[in-house]
């Protein structure tokens, strides 16, 4: 198989995983579908020469976030699960339109071509490694990340902790 065919298969798999994620009746399976989608995305990232991002994607998005979702489902959705299962048939009907839509849009997009009417980036290709970029060149982003994580942490403290206590 050529490189391109593999890419096409991977993209198709990604879209199918996403479709399954939203179409499956049980929320738990949906969370697992998200994990699978993330994993496929991680593979794509590997293939797109972005191993570091792929590792993060695999560990955090395919690992941590589904776990968060699953534990949330565990805390909330026990009642939901049964009612959702009962509505499975209705649900399929609801998402049948999505299938058609995805096929049509995919067809349209494949036949269309992105116009090549812009220049490639000028200047030399930077040679720094992602680590250097991240740790040495984008300190401002790092401070932003600290802020984001702090906000998330306070969110947990305020929302989750109190929620559990109640």
């Amino acid at each position, binding site marked *: 198989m050529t490189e391109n065919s593999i890419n096409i298969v991977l*993209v198709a798999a990604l879209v199918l995983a996403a479709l399954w994620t939203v179409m499956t009746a049980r929320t738990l399976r949906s*969370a697992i579908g998200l994990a699978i989608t993330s994993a496929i995305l991680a593979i794509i990232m590997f293939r797109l020469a972005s191993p570091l991002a792929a590792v993060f994607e695999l560990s955090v998005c395919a690992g941590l*976030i589904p776990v968060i979702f699953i534990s949330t489902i565990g805390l909330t959705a026990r009642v939901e699960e049964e009612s959702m299962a009962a509505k499975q048939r209705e649900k399929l009907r609801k998402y049948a339109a999505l299938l058609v839509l995805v096929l049509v849009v995919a067809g349209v997009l494949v036949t269309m071509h*992105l116009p090549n009417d812009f220049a490639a980036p000028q200047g030399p*290709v930077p040679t720094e490694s992602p680590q250097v970029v991240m740790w040495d060149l984008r300190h401002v982003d790092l401070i932003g990340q600290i802020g984001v994580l702090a906000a998330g942490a306070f969110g*947990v403290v305020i929302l989750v902790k109190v929620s559990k206590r109640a």
Partner: protein
Amino acid sequence: MPKEAIELFSLFGVGALLVMLVGFYSLLTTRSLIRVMISVELLSKSVMLLLIAAGRAVNRTALAQAMAITLINIEVAVVVVAVGIILCIYRHHKTVDTAVVQEIKG
């Protein structure tokens, strides 16, 4: 712009758009707040793919990865906060149906 680069980006761009479509569709139609957040996650997957593909297409993978990792961090924070809010909503309403979050209107 080199032809191969455009084609590479176009392929993954199409994939990202389709995932985005799926995500938006689900976001608009689902009845569960948890699924809403899963849809949001799908949306961020799609833009992540777009970003990495763009980085690869123009040989700026280092920058793209740095951005992607930052985005993953942000994603985690958003998800954590969202899940916390959903848990609190569940505590109030004993359900995560989206119908409970339409009291503020008019």
